[in-house]
C-alpha cells in the first residue's frame, strides 16, 4: 500500500508554470525514473511529493490516501537530495540517525539501525566525521543512508549520483537496484543521465517543459521514442536524424538514402510523400559486403574505449554515424556499403516532431493535432 499517485499536479512560481498537469502512477515496489533536462521541473515535482513545496492544485496520494494536508514530517518518506543536504554541524552518524530520533527510537535501536545501514553502504568507518571531512562519495552514501535508515516505503532520490565521480557512479548504479528491492520501497528516481535512467527504471517518465511527454519502459523509450527530442536524449552517440520523404509503391514503403531504398514498415504507407525525419541508431547500422547496401564514404573514425565510431557521408554529403564494438573488423576508408534492419528505423513527422506509429492509429500525432 505504498503506491504513489499524482493527479493533475500544477505548480508555478510567479508567472512561470513549472509543472502543468502532471499525472503519474508508480505501483508499489517499483522504480520510476523521472528523466529530463535541467529546469524541466523534476526536482519541483519531487518536492511536492515530499511536502517541501505546496502545489497550486492537484493531489498527491501515498498508499491511496491524499497527503495534501499532511506535513512533510508525517508523510513517512525517505529522500536523498542532489546536493546531499547533509546537516553540516552534525556527524555522519547523527545525520543518518535523524529519521530514527524523530521516530523516538531508543538509543540502542538507533545505534543498531545506523550501523546496519552504514555497513551496507560501506561508510561505517567514517560515522564520526562531519560532512566537511567526507569525500563526495561518502557524502552521497551518507545522504542515501539517511534516506534508507527508517525503511520508508516511499523513497525519493533526486539525482543522488550526480555529484560523485564516474567510477563510484558506475558502482552505485550496479548496486542500487539490489538495495532498493531489498527495501521493497516504491521509488521515484530523478536523473539527467540516460544510462542511469535505463539501468534503474522499471519505467521512465520523460519530463520536459512541465509536461510528461512519454512514460514507458526503457525499451519503449529507446526503441519507440515519442518525439525527436526524446530520441536525441537517449543514446550515445546520438541518433542519426535524416530528412526524408517516404515513397510507397508495389514493393512496400521506403525512404531513399544515397539512391538506395531503405525498407520501412508497411504500416507507414499513409505518410508517403510527406516530410518526415528518419531516425537511425548508430549501433543499428552496420557495414555490409552486399552491394545492395547504401553506398557511403568513410570520413573519420574515432576510437572510444569500448566502441569505435565512424563518420560516413552519403552521396548527398549527409553525415551519418555508425558505432560498433571495439575490436570488430571494419573497412578503413573509401566507399563502402552500410545496411540497417528495418525494425530499427523510426520515422518522425518533421512538422510536429512526433514519432509515427506504423501500427495504424497514430495516437500521439492525433493528440497533437
Amino acid at each position: 500500500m505504498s503506491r504513489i499517485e499524482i493527479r493533475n499536479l500544477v505548480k508555478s512560481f510567479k508567472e512561470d508554470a513549472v509543472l502543468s498537469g502532471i499525472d503519474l502512477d508508480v505501483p508499489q515496489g517499483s522504480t520510476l525514473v523521472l528523466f529530463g533536462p535541467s529546469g524541466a521541473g523534476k526536482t519541483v515535482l519531487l518536492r511536492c511529493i515530499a511536502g517541501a513545496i505546496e502545489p497550486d492544485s492537484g493531489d498527491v496520494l501515498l498508499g491511496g490516501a491524499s497527503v495534501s494536508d499532511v506535513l512533510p514530517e508525517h508523510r513517512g518518506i525517505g529522500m536523498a537530495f542532489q546536493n546531499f543536504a547533509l546537516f553540516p554541524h552534525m556527524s555522519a552518524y547523527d545525520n543518518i540517525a535523524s529519521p530514527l530520533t524523530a521516530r523516538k527510537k531508543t538509543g540502542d535501536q538507533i545505534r543498531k539501525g545506523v550501523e546496519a545501514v552504514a555497513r551496507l553502504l560501506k561508510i561505517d568507518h567514517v560515522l564520526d566525521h562531519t560532512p566537511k571531512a567526507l569525500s563526495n562519495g561518502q557524502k552521497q552514501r551518507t545522504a542515501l543512508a539517511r534516506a534508507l535508515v527508517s525503511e520508508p516505503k516511499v523513497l525519493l532520490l533526486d539525482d543522488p549520483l550526480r555529484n560523485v565521480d564516474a567510477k563510484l557512479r558506475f558502482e552505485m548504479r550496479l548496486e542500487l537496484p539490489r538495495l532498493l528491492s531489498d527495501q521493497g520501497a516504491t521509488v521515484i528516481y530523478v536523473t539527467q543521465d540516460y544510462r542511469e535512467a535505463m539501468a534503474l527504471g522499471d519505467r521512465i517518465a520523460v519530463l520536459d517543459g512541465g509536461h510528461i511527454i512519454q512514460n514507458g519502459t526503457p525499451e519503449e523509450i529507446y526503441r519507440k521514442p515519442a518525439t525527436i527530442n526524446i530520441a536525441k536524449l537517449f543514446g550515445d552517440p546520438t541518433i542519426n536524424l535524416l530528412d526524408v520523404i517516404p515513397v510507397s509503391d508495389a514493393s512496400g514503403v521506403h525512404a531513399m538514402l544515397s539512391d538506395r531504398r531503405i525498407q520501412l514498415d508497411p504500416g507507414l504507407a499513409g505518410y508517403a510523400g510527406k516530410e518526415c525525419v528518419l531516425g537511425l541508431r548508430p549501433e543499428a547500422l552496420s557495414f555490409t559486403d552486399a552491394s545492395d547496401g547504401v553506398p557511403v564514404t568513410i570520413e573519420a573514425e574515432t576510437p572510444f574505449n569500448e566502441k569505435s565510431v565512424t563518420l560516413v557521408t552519403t552521396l548527398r554529403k549527409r553525415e551519418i554515424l555508425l558505432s560498433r564494438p571495439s575490436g570488430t573488423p571494419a573497412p578503413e576508408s573509401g566507399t563502402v556499403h552500410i545496411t540497417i534492419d528495418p525494425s530499427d528505423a523510426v520515422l518522425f513527422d518533421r512538422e510536429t516532431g512526433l514519432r509515427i506509429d506504423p501500427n495504424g492509429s497514430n495516437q500521439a500525432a492525433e493528440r497533437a493535432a
Partner: protein
Amino acid sequence: MDHMSPLERILRAVALALVVLFFMFPIFWIVLMSLQTNETILRSPPSMAFVPTFKNYAAIIAGRLDSNVASMSIQFMGNLMNSVILSVGSVALALVLGVPAAYAFARHKFKGSEDIAFTLLSFRFAPPLLVLLPLTLYFQSLGLANTYVGLIWVYQLICLPLILWIVRGYFEDISPDIEHAYRIAGHGWFATFRKIALPLAGPGIAAAGLLAFIFAWNNFVFALVLASADKQPVTVGALAFVTASGIQYGQIAAAIVMSIAPTLLLALWAQKYLVEGLSLGAVKG
C-alpha cells in the same frame, strides 16, 4: 603571484602608513592624555615625555574629583552601569523578538511580509527625533519616562531592525534543502528551527548581536531625549561631564577612554564577525 614594481610597493606602504596614522592617532592621543596630569597636558609645545599616572582613572572610579579649588562628587560610574544595562537589555530583548521574526521573513514569503520588511527598512532611515519627540509625551503619560524598561523598549528601534536584517540574511544563506531534509526525516518545524536553523545561523546571530550591542552602546540621541541624569548612558554622561568638570582635561580623557574602551575591545575581539555583519547588513539589508 606578486608582480608589483618597487616604486609601487613604496608608494603603497607610504599611503598605508598615512591611513593608519590618520585613523589611529586620535585614539592614541586621547589615551596618552588620560594618563597625564593637567600640568603635562597644558605644556607647550606638547611632548611625549611624561610620567604616566592613573590618578585620572582612580578619581573617576572613586567618584570624587579633586581640583585645586574644591572637590566634587561625580557619577560617571553610574553612567557606565547604565550603558551596560541598556545595551545588554536591549540586545537580549531584540534577539528574543527578532530571531524568530527573521526566520519567518527568510523562510516564508507570506502575504504582507514584503510590506513589513519595507516599512522597517524605510524607518531604519527615518529621522530618530521624528519618533522620539512624540514619544517623550507618550512616555510621560505611560509612566515610562526615565525608566530602564522604557529606554530598552525604545532602543528596539535600533536593535530590532538591525538583527532582523542581518539574521534574515544568514537564514536565507542556509540551503532550504537542509531544512527540508530534516522535516522529511520526521521532525516538526520547531525542532528544525532549533536544531538546524539556529545552530547554522549561529555566527550570524552572534554578529548581529554584537553589532546591535555596539550601536546601542554608542547611541546618543535616544537617551539625550528620554533619560534624565540617573539613567543616562556614557555617551550623554560624558557630554555632561565635560561641562561639569571644567578644566580637568585628564579626567575628561579618562572618561572618554573608559566609554569607548568596551566597544573597541569588543571590535578587536570579534572583528571577523563584525566585518561580516556590517557588510551583510549593508549588502543584504
